[in-house]
């Protein structure tokens, strides 16, 4: 993103094509620009509408050399185009150097690809160091049939505007995103991650420092674009900086805050029988270095060091966790306690003394 993170404060933006390059048919220019906007609208809540007269938020121009914005073009090659970050007047406008040969193909400079990049600036993105990103500063031809934004591009734009079909979610009820203070709030999964606690719900997760009531909320997609929504269980092995996330019969690894690029693994590789189709909740016990997996009214215990499921499991939850009834929606470990989430309720359970120490509402962490 750009310094000071300028963004548009509205979700519906207008654009106008001020003039055309003689290198291409007008309809091809129109199409390239429209498709370039679509690339960004596909991954954000932003909507773009073309207008033919009047003041548009984003104006597209083709220009030679000095063109009135104190940032002259330099003739063929070198600088191909530039754009201004969100703002009034010239803010958001994208200018293309007419000295280039613009095209809809691989000949010369492909207008669509350059437009996607410049419109990224128009929306508030800076340059990426990732050569696979469209926001990398240097021109590179991508296969137009398979073109898609890189994870870095998506992360950048969604950090400014949120994911598609959503507003930038807020932790408090405002009609958009989940409401942390809803008394009936339930969670899909909860885990610590580094110094934060993450609370997963549908497409979103809240993140907060344990000692602070302030919480942030993000869409899962905006942070880990390849991770599905509806995470069902999660646990952290803190001394390895690893977080495991579970959905249905698959699990993913986040190591040092980065989602590992390998495809998800099957939970059965951990030792679950084929009859187990999903995990309700998971929690890590750092004293024993074991992970507990809760499935319906039973739980399994997994030895993280030996990478084997402990024998004599599954066991009944109600028998071995006195006072905890099935079934468990989510669980996490923090400072000597397990926290079990069941519907809109939460139980604090002392790991050493093996007894319940507190009964709480599920959203007690948000200072509602």
């Amino acid at each position, binding site marked *: 993103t750009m310094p000071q993170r300028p963004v548009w404060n509205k979700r519906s933006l207008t654009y106008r094509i001020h003039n055309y390059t003689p290198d291409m048919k007008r309809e091809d220019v129109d199409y390239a620009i429209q498709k370039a906007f679509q690339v960004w609208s596909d991954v954000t809540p932003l909507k773009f509408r073309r207008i033919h007269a009047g003041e548009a938020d984003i104006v597209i121009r083709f220009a030679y050399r000095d063109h009135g914005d104190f940032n002259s073009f330099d003739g063929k090659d070198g600088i191909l185009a*530039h754009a201004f*970050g969100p703002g009034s007047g010239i803010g958001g406008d994208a200018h293309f150097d007419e000295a280039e040969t613009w095209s809809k193909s691989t000949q010369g400079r492909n207008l669509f690809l350059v437009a996607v990049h410049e419109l990224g600036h128009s929306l508030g993105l800076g340059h990426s160091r990732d050569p696979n990103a469209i926001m990398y*500063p240097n021109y590179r031809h991508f296969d137009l049939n398979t073109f898609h934004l890189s994870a870095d591009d998506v992360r950048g734009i969604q950090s400014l505007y949120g994911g598609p079909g959503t507003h930038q979610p807020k932790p408090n009820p405002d009609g958009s995103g989940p409401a942390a203070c809803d008394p009936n709030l339930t969670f899909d999964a909860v885990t610590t991650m580094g110094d934060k606690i993450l609370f997963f719900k549908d497409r979103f997760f809240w993140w907060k420092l344990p000692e602070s009531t302030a919480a942030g909320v993000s869409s899962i997609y905006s942070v880990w674009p390849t991770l599905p929504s509806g995470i069902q269980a999660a646990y952290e092995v803190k001394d390895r900086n690893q977080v495991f996330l579970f959905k249905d019969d698959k699990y993913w690894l986040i190591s040092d805050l980065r989602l590992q690029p390998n495809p998800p693994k099957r939970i059965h590789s951990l030792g679950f029988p084929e009859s187990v189709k999903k995990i309700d909740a998971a929690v890590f016990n750092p004293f024993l270095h074991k992970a507990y997996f809760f499935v319906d009214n039973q739980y399994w215990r997994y030895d993280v060091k030996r990478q084997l499921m402990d024998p004599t499991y599954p066991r009944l939850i109600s028998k071995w966790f006195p006072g905890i009834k099935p079934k468990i929606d989510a669980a996490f470990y923090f400072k000597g306690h397990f926290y079990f989430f069941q519907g809109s309720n939460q139980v604090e359970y002392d790991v050493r003394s093996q007894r319940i120490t507190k009964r709480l509402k599920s959203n007690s962490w948000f200072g509602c």
Partner: protein
Amino acid sequence: APLTHNNRSTEKIDVTFAIEYLSNFYNLHLDGTPMTKMKINNNFLEEKIQEMQQFFGLKVTGQLDSSTLELMHTPRCGVPDAQHFT
């Protein structure tokens, strides 16, 4: 002698080009020194070359080596990598 002269001449063109590139995209300030005199603070120039090499994932030498110059000549977006576009 002509070979040395040519080499120096090429080097001068490269440095002039690099200074222009770094001024455009890496916030290199010449502080009013005419570019032709090449009296720019060498350390600062080296730092800016390093910044650019780091951004592009090149070997960080601070020198205008061939890969750095090649990358500088690649067509690109006019928005700076290291400052506001005003």
